[in-house]
């Protein structure tokens, strides 16, 4: 039984099909989740894909934040569900306050569309557990508002608590901590390319792992990130099933049975 992973589709999402395809390569059964529906269809994890949700009007991600599906996603995340936001999805998560910080206009003002290298700071998260080692991962970025910003206290807390998930790095793996570093494509503070929430179950990153999921496309370095998510989601779904079974045996009704 494959793991069902939801891919949210907003008006203006344009990486939803690629994301669903790459999740399939990672072993999941992708499920499209329409923005106007609060029904998450019993998925085991959710990905917010890239694009320009609601035209990126006002600020990237802010209008999507108030959609029915995002209210459901917030509840899913609060209950410990795994959520990954990619690019525009990261912007939506940040606007919704589900991950800390904000994504500002790129320091160079240009829309940046090129391959970058990022390195995982941690290998024990649901998003990086199958990456294997701390090495540069090559994958594209494509965004106009990707400069990670958080106030100094938040940055210090992120560093202290190990919540920086990915950093932009030079090809040799040196972190691009300086916003003006050549390997830092957008002026992100501390070279931050991805972060997690405090509980560690919600993550966002600007680069596109789904666009680097097959060697034919130039890099398959993004696939382990998606495989990590699928594996972690599968374990959680199975765990929930076992717990449900015990509760049923103990005569405790009212559990979320039939979880597929």
């Amino acid at each position, binding site marked *: 039984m494959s793991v069902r992973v939801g891919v949210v589709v907003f008006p203006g999402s344009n990486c939803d099909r690629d994301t669903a395809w790459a999740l399939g390569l990672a072993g999941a059964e992708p499920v499209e989740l329409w923005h106007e529906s609060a029904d998450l269809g019993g998925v085991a994890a959710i990905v917010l894909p890239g694009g320009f949700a609601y035209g990126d009007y006002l600020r990237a991600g*802010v209008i999507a934040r108030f959609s029915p599906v995002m209210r459901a996603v917030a509840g899913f995340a609060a209950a410990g569900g795994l959520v990954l936001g990619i690019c525009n999805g990261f912007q939506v998560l940040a606007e919704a306050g589900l991950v800390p910080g*904000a994504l*500002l*206009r790129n*320091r160079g*003002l240009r829309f940046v569309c090129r391959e970058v290298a990022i390195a995982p700071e941690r290998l024990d998260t649901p998003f990086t557990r199958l990456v294997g080692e701390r090495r540069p991962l090559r994958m594209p970025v494509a965004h106009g508002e990707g*400069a990670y*910003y958080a*106030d100094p206290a938040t940055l210090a807390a992120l560093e202290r608590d190990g919540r920086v998930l990915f950093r932009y790095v030079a090809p040799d793996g040196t972190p691009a901590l300086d916003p003006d570093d050549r390997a830092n494509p957008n*002026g992100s503070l501390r070279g931050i390319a991805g972060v997690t929430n405090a509980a560690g179950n919600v993550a966002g990153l600007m680069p596109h792992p789904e666009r680097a999921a097959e060697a034919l496309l130039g890099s398959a370095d993004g696939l382990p990130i998606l495989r990590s998510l699928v594996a972690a989601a599968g374990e959680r779904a199975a765990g929930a099933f076992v717990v449900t079974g015990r509760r049923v045996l103990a005569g405790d009704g009212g559990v979320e049975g039939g979880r597929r």
Partner: protein
Amino acid sequence: MSTPEGAPGARPAASFRFAVNVTPREGILDPQGRAVEQSLPHLGVAGVGHVRVGRRVELTVDAADLPAARAVVDHLAAALLSNPLIEQFDVEVLGAASSTATAGVAR
């Protein structure tokens, strides 16, 4: 916020026109403002600095009175029109009109 037509007592008494000005917070890098600033020498203009580029949103609110309308605008400005992490806002009252639905097109 709105009540059915004809419901006595609670109907909005007036329309109020507002502007919300949103700008980057102090200390937040504003690359647009910097780009504008760097263009000034091309115009032969000197002595202009600290350029900050933001956005202005104008809106009409139907409410019982100005404080009630203002409360709606303050809420929208903080929750939707600005991101308090990176932006600040101020609210201007542009005017009040008696209960007409056309106040929003008066420009």
